[in-house]
Each structure stands twice: as structure tokens, then as C-alpha cells.
């Protein structure tokens, strides 16, 4: 019990000392950008597995269940994205169940299920001017207004594909998502209070504090000279 309390006491004392001298150490200005620390705080940025679709120079990017157009969040996803293409003045995105129209600025125009199309969507692409949506039931071709969809035997000349992001695109979005990192002061404060390890950490620090009190009182009790 003594060793456990000693370990917690050292953490408390060392972090307490550092926090006491925070203004001189400028801990608030030191930003921690380590990926595992940011992940621990749930501030996930872009990693090597993050993929996107290149839409004529703009990138539609999937991070967890969020969709981004370059640096702008365009909403949460309720199903995996299977493709996206560029149309005049807007973008068309397909997930497994529906299509989403976005302006070039990333504003949502509408989400919709195309008339006459059945089966889960599996790919989206172009064949010349035509838009081709592949589903489990077959391929469908749309008019340019996206009002009429008909079965087609035509295969898209090019299917849109999710690919790894270029380095600069990934770095820019990562910076946007993680806000430049976490102040070191915040991490040391959370270590001091136990909040770094969520509720369990706080409870452990509370337990250590209670044990310290018990040890101090029982130590005094043993030491106190009795007649």
C-alpha cells in the first residue's frame, strides 16, 4: 500500500510543482502535437489510412464518419461513401443508400434517393457527359438534371475512387482538425488531477489521497507517545 501511495504522491508532487511554476515555464505556449497524445484526447487528425476523392483539384475527404470538402466539414455520414464526381457548379456524392449534392463551397443542397434505382449503391462514375451509378442490382444512367435514372448496360468510362491523400492536403486538414495541438499545461494539469485517465484516473487519485490521509493518521497514531 505504501509503494502505491508513494508513486501517486510523487506524481502529485512533481506535477504540482510544475503547475506552480507554470507562468515561468510558459507551459501554456508549448503545444503538444504527438499523434498518440491527440488520439488519447479524441482529437484524431488525418492518418495514413485517411482517404479522399479528387474532384478537379478539390478533395472530398472522409475522416471517421465525417465528410470534408478540403477543410470544410460538410456533415456526418450514415453510410460509407462509394464515389463522388464533379458536375457543373456542384459535386455529387454517393454513399451506399443515397446521393448528396453539394455546392462547390461545400454547402449541402440536398440528400436524395434517385427515382427508379434499386439496390445498395456501390460506385459512381462518368461515361462522357452521362452519370453512371452502379448498384447491387445493376448500373443506372442519369440525365444531367439528375431527375431520371434508367438501367443501362454502359459501364462508366471512369469510376471515382477513394485514394490516399497528397501530403499537403493531409497536413492542412490535420492541422485544421487538431487545432495545432494541445497546451502542455493542460496535459500536466490532467495528469495532476487524474483526468488524463478519465473517471478511473480521477477515482485513482481520490483513492491515493484517501490512502495518504489514512497513512498519515495511522502513522501519527503509532508515533504518538502513550502513557
Amino acid at each position, binding site marked *: 500500500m505504501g509503494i502505491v501511495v508513494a508513486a501517486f504522491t510523487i506524481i502529485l508532487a512533481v506535477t504540482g510543482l510544475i503547475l506552480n511554476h507554470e507562468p515561468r515555464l510558459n507551459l501554456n505556449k508549448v503545444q503538444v502535437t504527438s499523434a498518440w497524445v491527440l488520439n488519447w484526447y479524441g482529437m484524431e487528425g488525418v492518418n495514413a489510412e485517411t482517404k479522399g476523392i479528387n474532384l478537379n483539384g478539390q478533395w472530398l475527404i472522409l475522416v471517421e464518419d465525417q465528410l470534408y470538402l478540403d477543410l470544410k466539414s460538410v*456533415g456526418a455520414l*450514415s*453510410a460509407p461513401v462509394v464515389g463522388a464526381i464533379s458536375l457543373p457548379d456542384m459535386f455529387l456524392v454517393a454513399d*451506399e*443508400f*443515397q446521393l448528396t449534392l453539394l455546392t462547390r463551397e461545400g*454547402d*449541402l*443542397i*440536398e*440528400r*436524395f*434517393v*434517385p*427515382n*427508379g*434505382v*434499386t*439496390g*445498395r449503391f456501390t460506385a459512381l462514375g462518368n461515361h462522357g457527359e452521362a452519370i453512371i451509378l452502379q448498384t447491387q442490382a445493376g448500373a443506372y444512367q442519369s440525365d444531367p438534371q439528375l*431527375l*431520371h435514372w434508367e438501367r443501362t448496360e454502359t459501364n462508366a468510362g471512369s469510376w471515382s475512387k477513394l485514394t490516399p491523400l497528397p501530403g499537403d492536403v493531409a497536413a492542412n486538414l490535420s492541422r485544421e482538425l487538431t487545432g495545432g495541438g494541445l497546451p502542455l499545461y493542460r496535459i500536466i494539469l490532467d495528469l495532476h488531477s487524474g483526468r488524463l485517465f478519465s473517471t478511473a484516473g480521477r477515482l485513482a487519485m481520490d483513492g491515493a489521497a484517501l490512502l495518504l490521509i489514512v497513512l498519515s493518521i495511522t502513522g501519527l497514531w503509532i508515533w504518538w507517545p502513550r502513557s
Partner: protein
Amino acid sequence: MRILAWLVPLWLVLILPSHAVDVFQEPDAFLTEVFENTVPDPSFLWLKGEVKEAARQILDRDAGGLRQRYWRADGRTVWIVEEIGKTQPITTGISIKDGAVERVQILIYRESHGWEVRYPFFTDQFRGMTLDADNDLSSRVDGISGATLSVRAITKLVRLALTYDAFARQGS
């Protein structure tokens, strides 16, 4: 040990997140059924001004998007709309005839709980409902124990579809 063989899988089922997607009816099949095989071209309701504000009042959030697609023929409008139950959107088809609910059908359900809202004992109670003067439903909706959030989401969607229908008919 034998009891562990039962308890461990039960515990795993309880703690593991479940996000299975259930397609109860494909949206296109719903449209085909409602319009008896002659689905009209879609129309658009632009979500701006008082339409946008009315939707916000119902959903307690911005409806999202610049326009809402719907289908219209023979005094009937059909809306395929979504609202989040607890964490995932519930895609719902709502058919409205002459300003009153004709049919409510849960199309795609993504939540792990509350799927009881798909059953006719729940969806049928909306039939014939209209909007009252306060833009509330004309009758009370009976809830389902354990599916409170899904019931709330579907109720909102029916109010939304009736409101959209009113604006669509005004605009015609």
C-alpha cells in the same frame, strides 16, 4: 464455468456497439407502391424563409440543405425524410393526401434500439392526422416503451412532412 459460457457472450452483446443497417423497404419501392407504378418526376421545395423557419421549429435544428425533393400527383405528396433517433438517421417515407397523412413507412433504420417503430401498430396511428392551429399533430401519438427517441423522431418527421406539404400546396 458453464455459466460463464452464457454470461460472456451476453455481456459482449450488451457492450458492443451495434450499427446494423436494416432496409425495411427501399425508397424506390415505397414510391412505386404509393403511386401504383407511375412515379411522377420529383419536385423541389426550397428551404428558405418561412419554410426554413418552420422546419427549424419542428426539428429544433436547421433542416440542412437548400431544397427538399418530393413527389406529387393526384392531390398526394410523398416525402422521404430523415431524423436522428439516438445517434443515427431514420429514413422515413411519408405520403400525404389532401393535407392528411395517408401512410408512414420506416424505410432504412440504422439505430441499435427502438426498431419497434417500424411496425404498423405504431405507424398506422398517424393515418388521417393533420396539423392543428399550433402546427402540432391533430391527435395524440402513443409511444413505445424503450423506443422513446425513435418515436419522437418519427413524430417530428410526420409534422415536418405535413408542414412541407402545406407549403408545397400553397406554392402551387
